[in-house]
């Protein structure tokens, strides 16, 4: 690839951050700002075919006409889109066959984050497609997958090698004009993951990608496309961590899931980006569009644990297009200090006998604001649609807020929709009971929060569940009051 050429200068930054760390990997960064030229340059850099460049340009034109949404229940200083560098890729991209060949500095970073590739390889049998900044650096287990006919690679690779699949499906679930951030992403997406499971194949391992935001002043515009062909099954894990930054970082990802007839996709996310410090400085802006489409008898299940980011704006949704299709959404959103989260889901019932389940648990502590915003829509032809929604909020301290905005629209008489929501706090008697048995208050709270979130944690794959449980504890540290 062009940017692996040696004449590119090394730009080493050796800044030390108080809470985070920063990896010195030579990067290839574009000048700040966004214009048609930048979009074309990104496309050229990635050696994309012409149709892709055109597709990006069209998205950019749409984006220029759009306005940033303001309806979410979050307050933040709007990012200046001309102050962001839209492309940054680690400079060297050797083809690794084993982990030993991976840049030791990168491996060290992952170790500090507690992500051990070796361990995961051995214990979980997970193929890891690490996205460091924007370009995927290491892909393991590719061989095992290839035997089954499963394609799991970076999206830029897919554009080159499987253009027919990408061309057919990209932008079909999240169109370019869907929303402000989706349009932006469509214009400038740097990289992401692509996954195709052929007909009737059950993916033998859990696919996972680790995202990291690493380059100062770099926006991350990931694009993920998962296609499960007829009768196939895949479980996809996505985990995010980021080192600390003083300035706000923007992350606007788009995830598209396509579950064809009888297919099933399970998409799990653990998101732990830098939430900003105790005074609400810094932190990641997470404006993500995630949506899946279910054909006949298909099933899509979203599970998310959101503990990081200063501002979260995220609604993983399911379009239940086919008859008998199923959509699920399980979410835990934890906010502490000055974090703000506006998250939830949309379940669009179009087909007959479609079912959806929504379980959302919001935990607010410190001075944070946590909102659930959801839509359940039953269209007039969706006979026997069934929905169950439950959103529970837990408030810790009296400076935080919990909000629920559930929209329910039914246009079919056979629809059965239930929605319930509760808001409560941790009972003093519960804490007293734990204290009495020698469990200190902080541990007791962790215990109670885990119990509160159990319904969702149970939905996560094993190794993620453990990590998520730890995350909950860490995020709520110091919130006892």
């Amino acid at each position: 690839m062009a940017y692996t050429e040696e004449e590119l200068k090394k730009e080493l930054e050796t800044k030390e951050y108080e809470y985070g760390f920063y990896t010195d990997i030579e990067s290839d960064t574009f000048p700040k700002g966004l214009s048609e030229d930048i979009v074309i340059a990104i496309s050229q850099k990635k050696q994309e075919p012409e149709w892709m460049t055109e597709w990006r340009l069209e998205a950019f034109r749409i984006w220029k006409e759009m306005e940033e949404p303001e309806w979410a229940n979050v307050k933040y200083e709007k990012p200046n889109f001309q102050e962001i560098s839209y492309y940054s890729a680690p400079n060297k991209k050797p083809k690794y066959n084993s982990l030993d060949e991976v840049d030791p500095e990168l491996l060290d970073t992952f170790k500090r984050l507690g992500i051990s590739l070796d361990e995961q390889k051995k214990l979980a049998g997970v193929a890891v497609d690490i996205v460091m900044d924007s370009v995927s650096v290491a892909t393991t287990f590719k061989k095992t997958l290839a035997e089954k006919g499963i394609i799991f690679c970076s999206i830029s690779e897919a554009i080159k090698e499987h253009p027919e699949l990408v061309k057919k499906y990209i932008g079909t679930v999240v169109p370019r004009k869907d929303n402000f951030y989706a349009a932006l992403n469509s214009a400038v997406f740097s990289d992401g993951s692509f996954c195709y499971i052929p007909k009737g194949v059950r993916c033998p391992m859990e696919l996972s990608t680790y995202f990291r935001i690493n380059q100062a002043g770099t926006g991350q515009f990931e694009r993920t496309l998962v296609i499960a062909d007829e009768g196939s099954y895949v479980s996809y894990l996505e985990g995010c961590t980021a080192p600390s930054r003083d300035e706000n970082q923007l992350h606007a990802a788009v995830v598209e899931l396509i579950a064809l007839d009888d297919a099933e996709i399970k998409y799990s996310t653990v998101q732990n980006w830098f939430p900003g410090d105790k005074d609400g400085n810094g932190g990641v802006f997470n404006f993500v569009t995630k949506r899946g489409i279910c054909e006949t008898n298909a099933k899509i299940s979203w599970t998310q644990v959101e503990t990081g980011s200063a501002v979260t704006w995220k609604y993983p949704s399911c379009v239940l297009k086919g008859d008998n299709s199923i959509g699920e959404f399980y979410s835990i959103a934890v906010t502490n200090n000055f974090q703000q989260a506006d998250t939830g889901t949309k379940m669009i019932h179009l087909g007959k006998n479609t079912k959806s389940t929504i379980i959302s648990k919001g935990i607010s502590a410190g001075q944070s604001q946590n909102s659930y915003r959801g839509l359940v829509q039953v269209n007039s032809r969706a006979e026997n649609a069934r929905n169950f929604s439950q959103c529970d909020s837990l408030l810790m301290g009296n400076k935080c807020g919990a909000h629920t905005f559930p929209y329910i629209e039914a246009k079919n008489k056979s629809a059965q929709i239930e929605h319930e929501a509760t808001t409560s706090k941790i009972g003093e008697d519960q804490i007293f009971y734990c204290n009495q048995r020698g469990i200190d208050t902080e541990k007791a709270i962790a215990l109670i929060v885990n119990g509160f979130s159990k319904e969702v944690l149970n939905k996560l794959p094993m190794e993620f569940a453990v990590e998520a449980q730890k995350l909950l504890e860490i995020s709520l540290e110091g919130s006892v009051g």
Partner: protein
Amino acid sequence: MDLKDKLLSSFIAFENNVDLDSPVHEVRSEAIKNFEAKGFPSKKEEAWKYTSLNSIQKVDFSVFPKQENTLDYKDIKKYFLHEIDTYKIVFIDGVYSSYLSETTHDGVDVCLMSAAFSKPMYKQIIELYFNKVASKDESLTTLNTAFSREGAYIYIPKNKAPRKPIQIVHFATGNEAAMMLQPRNLIIAEENAEVQIIERHQSLTGNEVFTNSVTEIFAAKDANVDYYKVQNDAKTASLVDNTYIAQKDNSVVRVHTFSFGGKLIRNNLNFYQNGQHVDSTLKGVTILGEKQHVDHHTLVHHAQPNCESHQDYKGIFGEKSTGVFNGKIIVDQIAQKTNAFQQNNNILLSDKATINTKPQLEIFADDVKCSHGCTIGQLDEDALFYLQSRGIPKKEATALLMYAFANNVLESVRIPEVKKRINKIIATTLGVRVGFDL
């Protein structure tokens, strides 16, 4: 000329007929400015997402009645709750009808806003209460404020209760092709006072009527107010009902809204709890058919600790009707120990009917118990079969189940005759005779 411009120019004419020097008029001028700036709400606004006023704005409404109209009591008796003795405040095309009304000044004041605005003895109360809880920036409320001249004025002094319930009835004669009415009511229940009010809007012909009503209710310490809204108007009448309620310590206010008739109804029901141990109840039954549209927008603002609110709205939607429920509960940071409950259950009878519901919680205090539940479903097939197997025809069986569905709301109605009347309307709406009183 669209309705907004017409209203703005009518305001100039309106000013010729009112006392321009009174402090009330300052409030009116302020309000018209706000309406001029905001205009009618559009569907782009979150609060009006599901309800459009476009069709109303296209109608050429006459804003002031051209002539005084009279009605014969025997023709309109059925619209009154005539089984029991009540005080009555009756308006015909927005004009007070003294011979149909029965007002009083015996210990309590049950009279007119126009009197309260003009007589010096009420000056202090008007200054203290008028437009104090009603929104100063919601456009339709300010439109009403601008044209506020007539309506019901009810003042219950400390430790008093009127001898009988009070009926407020607005008739539209239909002598004009299209009529716009803007009644303004003020209800004050002082410390430990009690009052029961029944309100009804009735259009007597198929001519178009648009009512934009504002009611302000003040419940002082230990006061007890019951308010029943009977919305069973002709299918050509539209109503925007804005009700604002301010409650002090230990007061209890219950508002029941029964919506069966009308073309388009929008209820904005707002409770502000400004004292401790306040109890607010909001209940409603909605049964619709044809192309009717009813939108319930409720707000309960818990601003003080130890308060309660109970909301229960049931809706049955047939044919091409649309139901909207938007219930908002706000719990302020200091409002600890709040118990706020909200329930919204709906039944869809037709594939062309629509329900949009949005139960919304905004909570800033941690020691609270708040819950909301919302369901959309249909009648239980098994229950229906059970009744049919016992010889009850399907239509009656369906009606029985619907009664049962709506009954929770009726249980808390404290005037038996109102309950009976509502049951009768439900039976008529459903087109059945169940053969016994429920």
